């Protein structure tokens, strides 16, 4: 139990070793296998320790416990401490981060082998895992914020990992800046919470909030909405979702770890962790549900039109997190975390499997240059198929149990929300089928060269098993933490439940008919003017990027160029200019001509006399 501190410390140590080694030893002389060993090993050890900690936690009666490390600072009644907090929620998160994280690190030792900056890659990845663990283990919103910013930083570093291409740098900066807009909102939420409640220790602040505010009070709504702002940025939800598709510029293991399994779900964790605030504010909770539904809807239509396999998965991630937000909003707290976990399994699987495909095709990501790969790449194909059925939520897969719980809970919240969720489930199945068909069936357009070793297909097998079976046993752990008391048994016999279950099956069937058998021909619809315009609108992510470019980025850059010389300085240079002007005028009087001086003297004297006379008179 006392080993908890070791869980975040191991990845931090891994980072430190790789960082220092990177400074001391030049790239050419680094031993790759050693970097890989440190990088993946530190996470593997952390996962093992996390397992021990989890066993101890249950052996000790599953009581939430806090581990004090040190007082970060103590000034003027503001004394946040660095303290780790273990309860069912943080335990689940810790398990996902270290477990799935380890598998992805292991995979990456193979995937990144031929890339420059091998040890730098693992340094960043380890730092990420450390930050993510601080985010979920921190018992204080400021420690959570430390992790929150830390994962944002690592996300930035890893999106731009291939730094020679300026495009990647742009994508990385975009991710960092857009999420930081959300972070700023969250920071203001912390300030307001601190001012009102006097503490930002999570447990104390939540207790304080419950005592302080009646249901629906304005202050708590503002705080909750500001926190939602942070969550929306980090979890790529509307309206701060635009960074995630571009974030696919990072290496595929990064997409799997950061932009699918862990960091992007941090917003879900934040809301679950501060659920007391949201319970006090029905407005804020409705906003969460609405954000989830809108994102879910927009992104699943967008995913249907993408060509890049990773962008399909990115939009799919957005929509699945949309489900989690919807769940939080409708009060199915445990289902949200349940879906977070199963999504981590199957989406990591999908990303890693697509990574194997991409690697075998020499970094080809356009699905329309793939095709017919299922025979040549059996393991990636099988993995991807398993991931896809879980994503589409076919019965008996992990995704089914979690998504079903969400969709059914949203029916109780409002049939409108249910309808949206069910349509999106249909769309999910449709775009997943499209992706699978285009990538793996039909004629082969590029010859693959698969040379992956066990360190790459091993993780795929484990994740495939989890994508199937990871949801069979529900999620008891969070029942004691979240207000809905865990994911209940679903009744699968009502009309709504049957419709909910039928939606993805229908999606797969229709998708198969459209994209594989071509029995359903939509060519005329797609090629019509309206169809084409819609397709392009969806393809571009519903115009958000264009809008932001025009409204924010454009004017910002325009005025920056205009004012490069600093308008304020003109005031001072003008003052200097005027002074110099006077200097020139007066210098003219120094002509060196005696007559001129004499005349001036005479005029001056006359003027002086005149003034004296006038004054005397």
């Amino acid at each position, binding site marked *: 139990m006392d080993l908890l501190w070791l869980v975040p410390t191991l990845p931090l140590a891994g980072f430190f070793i790789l*960082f220092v080694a*990177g*400074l001391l030893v*030049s*790239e050419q002389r680094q031993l790759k296998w050693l970097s890989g060993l440190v990088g993946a090993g530190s996470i593997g050890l952390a996962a093992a320790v996390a397992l021990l900690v989890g066993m101890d936690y249950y052996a000790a009666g599953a009581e939430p416990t806090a581990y004090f490390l*040190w*007082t*970060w*600072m*103590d*000034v*003027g009644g*503001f004394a946040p401490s660095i303290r780790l907090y273990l309860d069912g929620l943080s335990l689940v998160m810790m398990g996902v981060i270290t477990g799935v994280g380890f598998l992805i690190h292991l995979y990456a030792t193979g995937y990144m082998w031929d890339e420059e900056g091998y040890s730098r890659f693992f340094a960043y990845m380890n730092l990420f895992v450390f930050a993510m663990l601080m985010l979920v283990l921190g018992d204080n919103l*400021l420690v959570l*914020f*430390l992790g929150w*910013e*830390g994962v944002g*930083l690592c996300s*930035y570093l890893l999106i*731009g990992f291939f*730094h*020679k*291409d*300026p495009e990647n*740098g742009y994508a*990385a*900066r975009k991710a*960092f*800046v857009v999420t*930081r*807009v959300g*972070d*700023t909102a969250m*920071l*203001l939420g912390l*300030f*307001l919470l*601190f*001012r009102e409640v006097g503490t930002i220790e999570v447990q104390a602040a939540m207790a304080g909030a419950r005592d302080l505010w009646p249901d629906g009070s304005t202050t708590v709504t503002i705080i909750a909405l500001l926190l939602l702002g942070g969550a929306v940025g980090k979890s790529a939800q509307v309206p701060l979702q635009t960074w995630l598709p571009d974030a696919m510029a990072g290496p595929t293991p990064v997409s799997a770890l950061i932009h699918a399994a862990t960091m992007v779900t941090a917003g879900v964790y934040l809301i679950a962790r501060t659920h007391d605030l949201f319970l006090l504010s029905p407005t804020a909770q409705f906003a969460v549900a609405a954000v989830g539904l809108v994102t879910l809807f927009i992104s699943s239509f967008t995913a249907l039109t993408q060509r890049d396999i990773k962008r399909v998965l990115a939009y799919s991630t957005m929509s699945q997190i949309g489900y989690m937000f919807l769940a939080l909003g409708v009060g199915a707290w445990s289902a949200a975390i349940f879906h977070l976990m199963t999504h981590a399994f199957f989406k990591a699987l999908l990303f890693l499997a697509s990574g194997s495909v991409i690697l075998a095709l020499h970094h080809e990501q356009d699905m329309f240059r793939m095709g017919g790969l299922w025979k040549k790449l059996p393991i990636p194909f099988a993995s991807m198929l398993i991931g896809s059925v879980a994503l589409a939520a076919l019965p008996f897969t992990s995704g089914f149990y979690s998504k079903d719980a969400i969709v059914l809970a949203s029916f109780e919240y409002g049939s409108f929300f249910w309808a949206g969720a069910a349509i999106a489930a249909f769309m999910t199945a449709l775009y997943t089928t499209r992706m699978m068909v285009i990538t793996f069936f039909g004629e082969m357009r590029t010859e693959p060269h698969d040379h992956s070793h066990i360190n790459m297909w091993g993780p795929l097998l484990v994740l495939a098993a989890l994508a199937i079976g990871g949801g069979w046993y529900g999620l008891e752990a969070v029942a004691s933490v979240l207000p809905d008391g865990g994911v209940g048994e679903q009744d699968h016999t009502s009309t709504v439940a049957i419709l909910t279950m039928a939606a993805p099956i229908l999606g797969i069937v229709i998708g198969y008919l459209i994209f594989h058998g071509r029995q359903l021909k939509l060519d005329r619809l797609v090629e019509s003017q309206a169809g084409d315009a819609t397709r392009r609108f969806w393809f571009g992510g519903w115009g958000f990027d264009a809008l932001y470019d025009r409204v924010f980025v454009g004017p910002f850059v325009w005025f*920056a*160029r205009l*004012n*490069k010389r*600093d308008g*304020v*300085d003109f*005031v*001072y240079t003008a003052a200097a200019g005027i002074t110099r002007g006077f200097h020139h005028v007066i210098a003219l009087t120094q002509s060196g001509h005696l007559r001129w001086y004499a005349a001036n003297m005479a005029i001056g004297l006359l003027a002086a006399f005149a003034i004296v006379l006038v004054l005397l008179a």
Partner: protein
Amino acid sequence: MNILALILFLLLGGVVAWAAERVHPSAPRWVGLLTFVAAGLYVAQAWAGGYAYANQYIEWIPRFGIHVILSMDGLSLMLVALTLFLGIVAVVSSWTETERSHGFFQFNILWVMAGVVGVFTAFDLFLFFFFWEVMLIPMYFLIAIWGHEARAYAAMKFFLFTQISGLLMLFAILALVYFHYAATGLLTFNYHDLLGAAISRDVSFALMLGFFVAFVVKLPGVPFHTWLPDAHTQAPTAGSVILAGILLKTGAYGLIRFVVPLFPEASADFAWWAMFLGALSILYGGYMAYSQSDFKRLVAYSSVAHMGFVLLGVFAFHEVDGVLVTNELGMQGAIVTMIAHGFSTAALFMMAGALQERLHTREMSRMGGLWVRAPRMGVVTMFFVIASVGMPGLGNFIGEFLVLVGAFKASIPLTVAGALGVVVAAVYGLVLLQRAFQGTPNPDIPAMRDFGWREMSVMVLMMAALVWIGVYPQPLLDLAGPVIELLWEAP
């Protein structure tokens, strides 16, 4: 601790360094380095050995109530320590930069720093003004003699701005002493005697403004900042390190030590406007930083933004029981910001100097892809950019966060503006990193030398300092705490 001896030691070191050039061209820099190291160890040993308040009193011009009063409380101590450390950084960063007058160069560095130590420890207003001027003139020489292409213009601009604002402060000092004399019959420049001087509210407001403008020019805050980009850009590396790392802090120090304690009511009346200037500096400075294409100018403007946090924090007066009182969180945040910014900006200027020495340009459009050529410089730049972007776990975050928490009690709109500055910081910081170190390697750039052990040892020390402040700032907070508490009780 013998403060006077410390200052004289630095002055003497300057003279010796100047003379040492006759022995060998490289002797002056060794003298400079050893002087700073010795002085630094002296202060460090006092700090480590359970620091106690040091005080010195020597009669100087009793006729006018002027004396040499040197004291060192926690605030002074940490700033003096920073000064001496950055002295080492300045010498190291200009190790190979000067081509002529090596001795006079070191002399100027040592004399600026001696003046700064005096500024941080003088508790007699006349003596304070004296040191204020002492640090100015060597700085002028540093820019005017060893600066870059437009050094004459930049040096003159720096001189005029500080001189005119200094004059304003001199008037304010003399007027304060006069009004105090008129009220009590005691002619004195002693800081402690002048505290709580009974002056009418209007006069006190005017005097406060005199001090305020002098210090905000130095800080610098918008709209008095325009000397800074020129001075920083044109100064030699050591000059930029000293300017950004230390000289700006004398302005911040003046606000905390003089403006608020001497004129508490007037400061409280003016607080909103001061905070407004702070928020404006954060946003405008950050925005201007983004607009620049010159590495050094960008870092210079970023200083304007960071120092805006100091204004925001120091003047975050908030109401307690109907009375406006100084803000402990804001003050502490401002102080931590001063220290952390001292390290992060000094490091970035050192980097700018190193790049200029290697590439003979500061234009970022002519850099690009340098990471491949010099990975260590890339890592180091990345670290300090991340620090100045305000990453939790590093020093700058603690300062800015405390400032914002404190300011939130005073004015929510201005805090929101300040917090938005953090987004802007991300924009310009990452652009800097991108344009210089990432992207396609520029084929015109010749092979360049990466940082060696000399540069790296200084950089690693500064990185460690920022991590320490970021993870456990308590020693700094404890050191400044008693000083702040005195202020808190003053009004």
